């Protein structure tokens, strides 16, 4: 297994579903697919190539769009599937059917970026407090946290 083999495989199987495929470094492949093709790509990756280990799901706020990257890994390579979803309609299909271990990462990304994950088996808040105000998504770029002035207990400045 090498990078070129994987890229060829991807081109062969996914064909026009691929928006972009890059290989910036050895053992690193970035594959961009459309949001509707995500489940098909993940299922191909899992069933045909045997990538069962999902390392994590990262989200990036690009302003107009959100970029969600699924980092898969096997014994050779780290393959990253990238999808872009528009900010005004942040819908993301859940991959928990295929990869049960994705649940915590999906819950995290749901909370932090305010994405709606469709068909998520368990959508309760994970990291943020129960009384967190609705509509605040900390990792979005427009969410700014102002640091309160430092209060030193029992001390006069």
């Amino acid at each position, binding site marked *: 297994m090498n990078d070129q083999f994987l890229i060829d495989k991807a081109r062969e199987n996914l064909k026009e579903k691929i928006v972009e495929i890059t290989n910036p470094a050895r053992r690193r492949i970035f594959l961009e697919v459309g949001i509707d093709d995500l489940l098909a790509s993940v299922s191909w990756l899992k069933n045909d190539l045997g990538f069962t*280990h999902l*390392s994590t799901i*990262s989200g990036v706020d690009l302003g107009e769009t959100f970029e969600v990257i699924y*980092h898969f890994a*096997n014994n050779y390579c780290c393959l990253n599937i990238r999808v872009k979803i528009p900010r005004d309609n942040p819908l993301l299909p859940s991959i928990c059917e295929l990869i049960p271990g994705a649940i915590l990462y999906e819950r995290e990304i749901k909370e932090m970026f305010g994405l709606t994950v469709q068909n998520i088996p368990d959508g309760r808040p994970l*990291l*943020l*407090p129960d009384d967190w*105000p609705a509509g605040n998504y*900390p990792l979005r770029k427009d969410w700014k946290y102002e640091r309160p002035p430092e209060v030193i207990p029992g001390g006069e400045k």
Partner: protein
Amino acid sequence: MNFQIPIGPQHPALKEPIGLRITVEGEIIRDADIRLGYNHRGIEKLAEQKTWIQNVYLTERICGICSHSHTTCYVQGVEKLMELETPKRGLYIRMLISELERIHSHLLWLGVAGHEAGFDSFFMYVWRDREIVMDILETISGNRVHYAINTIGGVRRDLDELQVKRILDSLEVLRRRSQYYLNLGTTEPSFVARLARVGYLSREDALSLCAVGPTLRASGVPMDVRKDDPYAAYDEVPFEVCTAGTCDVLGRTVVRIKELFQSYNIIEYLMKNLPTGPIAVRAPRRAKPNEVVSRYEAPRGENLHYIKSNGSDKPERLKVRAPTLGNYAATIKMLKNGFIADVPLIFAAIDPCICCAERAVALIDARTGQEKIMSLKSLKELSLKVSPTTTRKREIEWPL
């Protein structure tokens, strides 16, 4: 009859806050639920406001036990972004610290496992011998916990002959002691009775729930980033990936002790083949717009940092996936149908590092949305206030 037990956020078995809610039937666990966030510090958000060099120390503070893992993972990624060629000697010293950290982390885990099982003597002995590693780390880096040896482009402190000799000498002691603990941990009847056939996680479950590190390897999956995706100079160093087929806590113990021996071999190789030359190159202050996925095998498993730069002196996004987070889904699976008595052991068996897995913003009042910091006095008043509705009615029924 079912009833729920809260394990945490504050519990003697947990050294850090995490919420486990366990539904039990008598002593048998029927269901488990996990709640994070008690230790969430917003590091990912904070990292976007700090410079590349400041973030080295920020990532170091993600975790105390595997502080070197996070910096190495981060620094490796940033070096790729900045297209720096790290000198060989720098890489070797970096690997030395990471293996020493693995030894100290595994020994710490072994002690904690003993403590959770009520085997305090074992705990004391293991931790005593762990001091050897801590002392070496202190002499090399100048601190016991946050080594701060990494910098972008290499490492910050060099090794001298005396230190190399000291490391090689202490390896002998550590090898002997580890062999003793391997024998002891697998033969002491009461300890084995607590470890064997506890927290079963089949190979299939381990793979589908994306477990990492020793948890995965104890289920018989040889997955180790050092072998699969060699970073630093791991492709030059001979070592083996340790696995066990028992899929239980005993297997995880054995995998960790075997990994100790591999680490001793790696350190021996590193010290005997230490290249000469500079230890670091100078790093620029800015990085070109790019992205990188950096992986690292921390003592607890695969550590992944996704770094995106935008051309400024600050990262655009730093995503940290600590190994413990990857193991939570598997832990819930392991807890089911176990005994209450096994909760601390099963939970400890993934070597949870909760502050790793979480990265508070501030106390925000739910009704008003306003931030406030409660004074000690008002907290005291709140705690002393007796609810008028409390009755002395007994609600708990016979649990057996």
